Structures are given as structure tokens and as C-alpha cells.
């Protein structure tokens, strides 16, 4: 039995990707997971007799990171794009409106187009248009996306457009999202001088097709395949072992990679509650809200933050559901009687009547989205991967983990060369000794 060269703590997507890549490079790897299953927030649950994603249900196409991994895992033929129906917006008051389709994270590319005016009102749209006249002097201090948009396009854009979208993507208010997290935004802003122009150039730079994709059968298939690869490449997986603290890491073998929150620092983060409903509602066949609805903060008619019409968004799921509809609602704070609140919210957000008997099945799932580790919480020499350092979303987490493994392997290869050199030197010394004895 070879000694363990690497111990990965945490069997979420970052831990799995890390362990797999190390093992494929021929390293001996052990993975420790606190629960009795792998995958973390990439999970599935059975609702209405169908296995559907219980956590992540799509991935950003940016950089092709996730698609490349899916292809490596033999899932390349099953990568799917969502339907081209856009999303809708539920404003604070009034009926839902289509989300302007040309923006990014809700930031309008053309503030004076009809869709944007419909959401912002003419006054708000004109204020947003001022962005093209305000000079950009560069960023002097750390600034959030919310503050930036508020300064350049006004409060209405932040509250009515950006906040609902950013919350849907990052589970964050834009005031809590550093602009660095929005890939290339600062650079493009510097180049083009206005936010709308930066957004337009980002749209142009985007590959043809959608910003997100999914996998037929669910994103959770990544975990099935990654787990199989761990077996294939001989990774030893230890379940139901919880590493409580940074001190406990010292007891582990080889180089330790932390791929779970709550070890270097207590878990801080937001709780997201998801309610999945399976509905018998023929009125939804028309997909009245496209792929779903984002809710503006401050809207009091519903408690949900967003609704995804999953069977409208994913053709494969529509086939699996055989005429039924699947919608998923997300909540920042779990309401009492989630099932009933979710049914009521779905009714309002989708604009159709959903009597209790139309709900065929319901499932609840709760996740903690851990906040980023503060620099002070990083322990020198401890390699960390995952959401606390790699950002929100599979693309960011996987890119980060891949880079971390590349660095680890470089170091390990260099160490091997050193060891070999030492061994060679020792062998030579031994030979010299033998020669002496012979002579």
C-alpha cells in the first residue's frame, strides 16, 4: 500500500475535481467527507418520481470550464442549452414584466429601449442614460457592483433590475458583490468609458448561445461520474468523518487540501431554501413567464426571491415530466408552511391559478451558501479550494480548483526530482563504498 500523498477534506464539487485530477496524475489520494454521500450542493432529489437537481441546476458557459469537464466525464453529448424564452421580472408593485434581454446582470445595454423603459419608467430610464455622459476616472477604492451602478445609472436600475438578477445568480445583493467578481467588467469600463458600452462589449464577447447550460438528466450527473472516476483512479473515500478545525488538519496524511467550509473559520453564509413543486397545470404549457421570474427586493406580494419554471427552461425535464410542470422557488428566509407559501407564490409569479389539488408533489431543500474566507482566515501553507475561495458557481469553483491542482502537482513533481536526486546520490555513494571495498 503506497502512502497517502494528498488528503482532500470535503467531497463537494471542488474536492471531487481536486481529488480526481491529483489521482489521474498518478498521485495517491484520500478524500474525507463529513456526510455519507459526495457532491455537496450538486445533488439530486426525487420529486414526482423524477430525479431532479436539488442544488445547482445549470452552469456558466464562461471559459468552457464546466463543459470541458463534462466532456472529459463522457457527458459531452448531453450538454444542453436552456430554452430561448427569457426570464421575467416581478417588480415591487404591479404585474411581472419581461426582463430586458440585452443586459448583463440586469445592467441595461440600451437604457432607452422599450423593455427597459417598461421596467424603470421613463424617468428611471433617462437617469440610466446619464451613464453615457459621466466620465470614468477608474476605481480608487473597493466598490460594489451596486454602488457602481447606482452612481452611474441611478437607484432604479439597482433596485428594479440589478438586484433581482444578481440575487438570482449569486444569492447576494449587488451592494455586497465586489465588481471584481463580475468578470472583465472593470477592464471594459475603463476601455469604453460607460457602463452600458461595457455591457454591450461584454455581450459581443460572449460566445454564441446562452450564458448558462445544463446537462440532460441534471447537473448532478457530474457527481456520479466524478465519483466513479475516484474509484477508477484508486482514491480512497472516507465517509462520515468530520474535520472540525484547522488543528485537526495536522493529523491528516500528506499534503492537505481543504475543500469544505467551516474548518479554517466558522461557516458564515446565507441560507437558501428551495421549494420544488410538481404541478398539474395545463395553463403553464404556454410558459407564461419564460424560464422564470426574478423578484425585485422589497416586493411584498410574494416571499420568494425567484422562481424557475424548470420544465420550460429544460427541454429534457419537460420530456421526463410527461405533461406535468416543475417549478422551483428560492427563499432567503424560510417561511412557515413552505409548501403552501410556495404554491401561493407560484400562483402570483406565474399569473395562473394553482389550487391545492394541482400540486402533485413538493420537496424542500436547504443550502448554506458560504461567504468568502477573509484573508485573515487563510492559514499559511494550507491549500483551500471551493466556494469560500473560488467564488459562486461551478465555473469559478472548478477553474480555481484546477489551477490549485496544477500548482500542487508542480510542487510535487519538483519534490520528486529532489528525492530522486537524493536517492541517486545515496546509491552512488554506496557504489563508491563498494568499489573501495573491492580495491
Amino acid at each position, binding site marked *: 500500500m503506497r502512502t497517502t500523498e494528498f488528503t482532500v477534506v470535503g467531497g463537494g464539487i471542488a474536492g471531487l475535481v481536486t481529488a480526481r485530477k491529483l489521482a489521474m496524475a498518478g498521485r495517491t489520494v484520500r478524500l474525507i467527507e463529513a456526510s455519507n454521500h459526495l457532491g455537496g450542493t450538486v445533488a439530486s432529489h426525487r420529486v414526482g418520481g423524477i430525479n431532479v437537481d436539488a442544488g445547482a441546476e445549470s452552469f456558466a458557459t464562461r471559459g468552457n470550464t464546466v463543459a470541458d469537464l463534462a466532456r472529459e466525464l463522457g457527458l459531452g453529448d448531453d450538454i444542453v442549452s436552456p430554452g430561448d424564452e427569457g426570464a421575467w421580472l416581478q417588480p415591487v408593485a404591479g404585474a411581472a414584466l419581461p426582463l430586458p434581454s440585452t443586459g448583463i446582470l440586469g445592467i441595461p445595454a440600451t437604457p432607452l429601449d422599450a423593455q427597459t423603459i417598461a421596467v424603470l419608467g421613463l424617468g428611471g430610464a433617462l437617469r440610466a442614460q446619464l451613464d453615457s455622459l459621466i466620465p470614468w476616472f477608474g476605481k480608487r477604492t473597493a466598490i460594489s457592483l451596486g454602488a457602481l451602478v447606482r452612481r452611474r445609472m441611478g437607484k432604479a436600475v439597482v433596485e428594479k433590475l440589478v438586484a433581482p438578477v444578481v440575487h438570482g445568480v449569486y444569492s447576494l445583493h449587488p451592494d455586497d458583490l465586489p465588481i471584481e467578481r463580475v468578470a472583465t467588467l472593470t477592464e471594459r469600463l475603463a476601455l469604453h468609458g460607460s457602463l452600458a458600452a461595457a455591457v454591450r462589449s461584454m455581450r459581443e464577447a460572449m460566445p454564441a448561445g446562452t450564458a448558462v447550460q445544463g446537462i440532460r438528466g441534471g447537473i448532478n450527473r457530474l457527481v456520479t461520474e466524478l*465519483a466513479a472516476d475516484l474509484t477508477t483512479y484508486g482514491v480512497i473515500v472516507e465517509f462520515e468523518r468530520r474535520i472540525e478545525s484547522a488543528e485537526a488538519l495536522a493529523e491528516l496524511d500528506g499534503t492537505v487540501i481543504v475543500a469544505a467550509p467551516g474548518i479554517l473559520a466558522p461557516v458564515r453564509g446565507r441560507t437558501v431554501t428551495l421549494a420544488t413543486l410538481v404541478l398539474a397545470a395545463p395553463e403553464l404549457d404556454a410558459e407564461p413567464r419564460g424560464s422564470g421570474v426574478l423578484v425585485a427586493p422589497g416586493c411584498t406580494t410574494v416571499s420568494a426571491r425567484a422562481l424557475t419554471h424548470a420544465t420550460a427552461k429544460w427541454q429534457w425535464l419537460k420530456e421526463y415530466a410527461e405533461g406535468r410542470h416543475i417549478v422551483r422557488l428560492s427563499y432567503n428566509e424560510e417561511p412557515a408552511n413552505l409548501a403552501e407559501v410556495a404554491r401561493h407564490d407560484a400562483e402570483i409569479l406565474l399569473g395562473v391559478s394553482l389550487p391545492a389539488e394541482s400540486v402533485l408533489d413538493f420537496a424542500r431543500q436547504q443550502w448554506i451558501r458560504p461567504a468568502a474566507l477573509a484573508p485573515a482566515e487563510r492559514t499559511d501553507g494550507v491549500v483551500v479550494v471551493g466556494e469560500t475561495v473560488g467564488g459562486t458557481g461551478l465555473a469559478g469553483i472548478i477553474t480555481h480548483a484546477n489551477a490549485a491542482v496544477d500548482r500542487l502537482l508542480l510542487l510535487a513533481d519538483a519534490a520528486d526530482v529532489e528525492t530522486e536526486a537524493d536517492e541517486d546520490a545515496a546509491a552512488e555513494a554506496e557504489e563508491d563504498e563498494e568499489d573501495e571495498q573491492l580495491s
Partner: protein
Amino acid sequence: MTLNTDHPLLDGRTANSPTIRAYWGDRPETTPVWFMRQAGRSLPEYRKLREGNEMLEACLTPDLASEITMQPVRRHKVDAAIFFSDIVIPAKLAGVEVEIVPGRGPVFANPIRTAEDVAKLRPIDPAAFAPIREAVAQTVAQLGNTPLIGFAGAPFTLASYLVEGGPSKDQQRARTLMYSDPQTWATLLNWCADIAGEFLIAQVEAGASAVQLFDSWVGSLSEQQYVRRVAPHSKRAFSHLRGYEVPKVHFGVGSGEVLQAMHSIGADVMGVDWRIPLDEADRRLGGGVPLQGNIDPALLGAPWHVLEAHVRDVMNRGRVAPAHVVNLGHGVGPETDPDVLTKIVELVHQEG
């Protein structure tokens, strides 16, 4: 682990034999030749010896296995002996119920199809290989300078038998499991790799000078399937031999699409079937890999002048490789006239 100093490779018996030199890429003066399944049904002396002996019992009876391995060496004057055994022997020794049904092949009482089935498979106790070690030792003692090649079925082919419950046309159940339950598939192939690896170790430690991993069914896989779901396990089987400096031959039937991938798992020599000529195999491998093969077994029944021209063509094409061991592109069939094999050996040796 390393070889004992009295191993034929280390005590001067086989290290300079044409076969071993060719396997290491050092082309000998005379091209060596042996035949897959040379020990077996084509020989009347084999059929006589097997009378009243069940196939797998014969494999596990050292005197019989050793004698059967020796028969073709005496008769044809081939340059290597291939250990007489069966792909399912390690599975049987690990406690899996299997018998060889004449005319059909290995049949498993309980096919392995679910995670539960796989969980019941136990690791093999190396002591179970005692009859194999004994048979190899007896054989090597008689072989002198002729090397013995150890043998094991590759994980995919062995797993296919286990999942299908016996031979099958296109390994469909096995390939379905590969997708429907990749975790169970990986666990099963790891088990197969480990028993195959231990089987090889037993033969090498007892005196085999080279090994060959057979992947008979690899032709039913796409390259992508092979690379992702199979190759890492074949690599694992070979990796058991870490430390033992013996040449490793890798052979698959229908392997044209995956030749490179099969080589990259740690094989020193590539066995090539009859479907692609050796110069094409060399091209696909990027050059530099010793080759073994690839007389079309179908031509064994053809008029001698046809077969002779084919053998010469095989040898000529094999000259692009650093070294070449002549063999068939698949096993000797039961109907083969053994005299034809003897004539091929004479021709190859005479051609040089």
C-alpha cells in the same frame, strides 16, 4: 518487489533470448515467433492429454498445465512458451463459480450485474495461486533458454464475462452497466484488475520472463469509452508488476482505434490483430514501439504459397518497428493443421 536472482531473466537463461530482446526493442539476428493459443486444441497430443480432464481443472493441475504449455515448444520450436491457462482462472481462484461449457466457453453461475453483486466479490488470497506457481516453475525448469510468457485477461474482457454470465456477441450488458452505474463498473473493473495483476505476479515470480495482457473484447468499445472506462483499470493491472523488470505485452482484438491508448497504459510491446498491417500500427503508435503479430489466422487454412507470401509481407511490414515478434493476429483455431504452424516457424527463422 523484485525478481529473485535465480529467475530466468536474471540468471542468464532468457535475457538474451530473441523474444525477450525483441520485447525490449533490441532487434535480434533472427526474428522470433510464437503463436497465441499454440498450447491447446490444435494439437493431437493436447486433445489426448485433456481426455477426461475438465478444462479449468487441467489449468489448475500443475503437471497438466505444464505439459500442455511445453507441447507446442517441442513440436514447433517456437521462441516462447505461453502459459496454458484461462482468462477466468483468477476469478475462479477468488471464489467465483464458473465452468467451461464445451463449445460455448466460460459460464458463470451468478452473473455480476449490480452494486450488491460487486460488493460480494472478495479480494484474492495470493496463496490461491499455488497451483499456478507450481505449474510455472515446472515449465520453466524444462524450458531452458526459451522464455515463458505469463498471461492474464484484461479487466474489461474479464468483467464482460462476469457481467454477461458468459461469452456474448457485443458485450451489451457490460457496456450498459458502464453507463447505468459507472461507480459499480469502476469497482468491478478494479477488482478484475487486481486479480489479473496478482495472477501475473504469481507467474512472474515463479519464472515467467514476460507477460501478456489479453483484451479480447476491446474491439466493442469506442476510443472514448476505452480511455475513460477501461484503460485506467488495465493500467492498474499492469501496475501490480511495479518493480518486476519484465516486458509487458498488451494485445486486443479489434484494437485499431485504441492502439495508442492501449500502449500508453504502460505496455512495452503492442500485439496487433490482423485488421491493420504492422506498418500502419507503427504509424498509429508514432514509431518506436516493438510490435507483435499479425498473421491473419484465416490464412492458416489457405494454400501454402498464399500463406507464405502473407507471412513474408507481415515480416517486411514489421521491419519498420524497432523489433518484431511474429505471431498470429488472434489465437490458433481448433481446426488448424499444426504442421502449418511448424512450417511458419521454419519460414520465419529462415527469413531472419
